[in-house]
């Protein structure tokens, strides 16, 4: 079956089984290995990508559901300067340790802030359920709060 979709702004046609998870189409068919495999059962969030702007756990998202959509992965997240605001905050707050969960973490946080630029702690807790085995959670929370504060300031200014 041929699946057409746009990934990071580039159009692709993939001849794969319709039930192949998007994750393995990205990693093994297209060699976009920035998106990570952690659990395969939608439990960890390491594989999070955006499908038409919405965060999905690509290990459990069949590719045919992504047909004719626009998919963004970590490789395609940056703006003209290279990194988006979340990625820049991640460097400033030195969030990653091993870094393996961080592609998914950054995708999830970017989606949260696109949707709700000034989330409360409860909003953050509910939206960011990614597992980080290195325990970068305190820095993730701090970086999100700082991004929210910057957003508020920009709006006022």
């Amino acid at each position, binding site marked *: 079956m041929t699946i057409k979709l746009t990934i990071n702004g580039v159009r692709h046609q993939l001849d794969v089984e319709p039930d192949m998870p998007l994750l393995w189409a990205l990693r093994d068919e297209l*060699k976009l290995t920035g*998106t990570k*495999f952690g659990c395969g059962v939608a439990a960890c969030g*390491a594989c999070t990508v955006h499908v038409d702007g919405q965060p999905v756990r690509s290990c459990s998202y069949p590719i045919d559901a992504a047909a004719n959509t626009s998919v963004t992965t970590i490789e395609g997240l940056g703006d003209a300067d290279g990194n988006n605001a979340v990625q820049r905050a991640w*460097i400033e707050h030195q969030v990653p340790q*091993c870094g393996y969960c961080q592609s998914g973490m950054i995708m999830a946080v970017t989606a949260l802030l696109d949707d709700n630029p000034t989330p409360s702690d409860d909003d953050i*807790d509910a939206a960011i359920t990614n*597992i980080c*085995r290195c325990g970068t959670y305190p820095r993730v929370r701090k970086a999100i709060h700082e991004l929210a504060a910057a957003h508020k300031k920009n709006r006022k200014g």
Partner: protein
Amino acid sequence: MAKFSRRKFLVGTGLVGGGIVLGISFMPGRLATIRKHYTVKGAEVLTTWVRIAEDNLVTVLVPHSEMGQGVHTTLPMMLAEEMEADWDLVRMEQAPAHQLFANDAVSKGFLLQGERLPAILNPPADWASYKLAQLLDVQTTGGSSSIRFTGEFGMRTTGAAVKEMLIRAAADKWDVPRSECVARLSHIVHEKSGAKASFGALAEAAAAYEPNPTPTLKDKSDFTIIGTSKQRFDIPPKVRGASVYGIDADVPNMRIAVLKAAPVFGGTVAKMDKSSIAGRRGIEDVVQIPDAVAVIGDNYWRAHAALADLSVSFDAAGHGDVSSQTIFSRFRAALDADDAKTNIAQGDVSIDGAQTLEADYQVPYLNHAAMEPMNCTAHVKDGKCEIWVGAQDPLACRGHAAKVLGLSAEDVTVHPLMLGGSFGRRSGVLMDYIERAVLIAAQVDYPVKVIWSREEDMQQGAYRPASISRFKAKLDDKGAPISWENHYIRDEERAAVHIPYAIENQSIRVSEVDTHVPYGVWRSVASSQHGFYIESFMDELAHAAGQDPVAYRRPLLGDNPRHLTVLDRVADMAKWGRKLKKGRALGVALRESFGTVVGQIAEVSIEDGSPRVHQIWCAADPGDVVNPDGFIAQMESGIIYGLTAALYGEITLENGQVQQENFPDYEMLHLATTPDIHVDIIRSGAKLGGAGEPSTPPAAPAVTNALFALTGQRIRVLPLKNHDFA
């Protein structure tokens, strides 16, 4: 530092493209205390490499793997400090690099004769890396060793030696006394004349001098890089998804294998019938090794799905009736049998006390569950083997692959890649990941990336051993402890059971019970068990004595002033003794591991019948600290790792095999359940301690001691999820 006496030798300097490459080796024969953390046998030789380019960039070749602990940044910081390099002009490269052995014979000759680097060796990294692989039998990353060992003895001395050479080059060039020249921000400056030259411009001339093996090291008070927070080199690529982890290996013509090993450890493949998956799309081979089968294809998902449909059975090697219950019964029987080996016998524990306390503590097996499932890519062909892997000890991987395949180490090349977490799993203690991958690869002629599914990673671990520890203590009529008896299972790390408290009469004994469960080193090793046991039982003594747990410990720490300072500091941070919100309580724990003393106080409550940790205060004395922000990150990380284990961590066995499969049934702390963590660093000046592990052990007892203060329930068996808090 300068008078630290040990044999050293220089392996030489060399000129490459106008720059300088310098390597200095040490043979630290007497580093017995450090030595025990290494798993590789053989001479301990440490070589440090640094390259100065014409454009004035200084590149430090770091011989350790980056697994998130920041070593790719802290080690260059130590070298740059001594060298007086401008931090903005410092870069790092991990060694060994690719084409590791391309220059084998030439490099060896060079090494032996100590001559200058032949010009044909280009790029220099290959040569430097080769040298590392040859000499650096202590390449392992783990045991919190990299900064303490490589940094202190390798990086700093090399940096200082290079600085001296650069000064000499400048002084000769300007015809001024060396003593009038200083190194500053990657330049040599002669203030009297105003002369100034960059390291890059002096490198070629500097390379002509013999490095001084005993350069004068800087005084701590003059540090400008060490002790300041620097951004880590490895982070920018990580936020772009550009770091290449083991699982991202991509080699021409490579296929992907998914394996299933005998679910009962020690078992072997009994029967396999490939016909059930014949003709499936993308599947190329099905291979069998003694204890596992693997389906090989062009895509993980295809191979994984085919593996699920493959008809295969395994035998249980006689362990089919083992369960967690039978294992713990055997442990208990061993404690009852009383045929233990003595670890410590001091004074007379049979003396009479006013009060006697007895308690048994128990912890389960734990899995590391690093975020990156285990994997290893291998190509075995024509008597050679190439491996791409994220591992704590690439050299040990090389040796192990050679052994398994019956090759010489020279025929094995290891390409180290980034580690998506390890916590001990990717160490050299149990290299099943190498063994299985090369055995599978040996049956096909293309390179193959072998990936463990999360379920396989969970059920084929190198587990933190389960154990039981039995205590008996006597208190005098004032409540002070006068005897301490401890009998525990498994001698993993003898010193882990020693207590910092001055108790006159002690008997500490161990019994060994073998099980079929494979074990490994798990973040903080035996301190993860004994930290919980000892600090919980101390809390029991304090309460039996009717005393405050902090006040109770203080007079017993007379011989350990660092512990006392840490305890006082953490009590201060948490405002120990203050009135708390209703339904909240504090608990304290103190533990030294890997040379760092850590005290923690937890604030807890019960929410919907389950423990909730709100805050952790953490005071840590690592002696000194290289990158404070990185150290704090490691403390946070270790605490969360310890809390996860305390609250949820449990691997259980039934019918000889692990029951847990994936994160849903091997729970993790999430952002929502992570407490606020406050870290203070105490720079006592003691010998440099570790960062990656020492904050894990106190987390569990701080929490369970707080829960006792809150509920009166003494938790002697982890994890907490198995307890009811009505």
